[in-house]
């Protein structure tokens, strides 16, 4: 996996800047569609201490790049259309229990790991490991399948996913690749 991996919470507060250098706002909410493991887009807030929420949103199709210091969009026209990233029915993505296919809870979601390719994809979760994990109580990264069904109620992963947990983002992309390759091998 060559895409840059970021934790979704790290994107909150990141400036949203046009390619000609104008800051249009900051990321307020990172809106995910866990059912198909995709990034829907961002809601925005005005920059500065007293800046409140903005009506404009940034759907993922309008994102030019997600860099380490800013989210780049082609122009101011890329924002707008509040309906495109409507988070009025949204649920917090954290605290969702993660269970295996055979019903064992492995932990609870504390963050979401995104691959910032095109399209951006949810590739894993940071979880607080449950009692049945060797690293119980600590936060680890758990890979998920491509287009894996999940909901605001639970994330279901194959039991083998726990064999590919990782402590930090460096090397986690390779762990995701190995995990997904192992699933493809099982299907053959």
């Amino acid at each position, binding site marked *: 996996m060559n895409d840059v991996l970021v934790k979704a919470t790290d994107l909150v507060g990141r400036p949203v800047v046009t390619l000609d250098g104008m800051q249009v706002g900051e990321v307020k*909410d990172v809106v995910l*569609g866990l059912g198909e493991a995709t990034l829907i887009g961002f809601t925005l807030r005005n920059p500065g201490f007293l*800046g409140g929420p903005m009506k404009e949103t940034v759907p993922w199709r309008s994102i030019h790049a997600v860099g380490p210091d800013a989210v780049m969009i082609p122009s101011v026209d890329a924002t707008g259309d509040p309906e495109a990233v409507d988070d009025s029915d949204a649920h917090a993505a954290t605290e969702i229990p993660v269970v295996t296919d055979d019903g064992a809870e492995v932990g609870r979601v504390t963050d979401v790991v995104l691959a910032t390719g095109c399209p951006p994809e949810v590739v894993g979760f940071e979880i607080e490991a449950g009692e049945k994990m060797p690293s119980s109580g600590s936060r680890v990264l758990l890979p998920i399948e491509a287009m894996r069904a999940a909901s605001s109620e639970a994330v279901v992963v194959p039991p083998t996913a726990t064999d590919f947990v990782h402590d930090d983002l460096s090397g986690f992309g390779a762990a995701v690749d190995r995990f997904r390759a192992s699933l493809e091998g099982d299907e053959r």
Partner: protein
Amino acid sequence: MEAALIILIVVVVLALVVAALAFQRRRRSGSVVTVDEVERRSGPGGGSA
């Protein structure tokens, strides 16, 4: 009497400032949220591959 009135006004103003800042802080706080993207995809520009 006047001193008590001034103190009361100052306290009320301070309470309003604190409440306004707390409200602003709550509105500014961001989060990671999930939505049902089936609904979103039916909307204009709804984002899924």
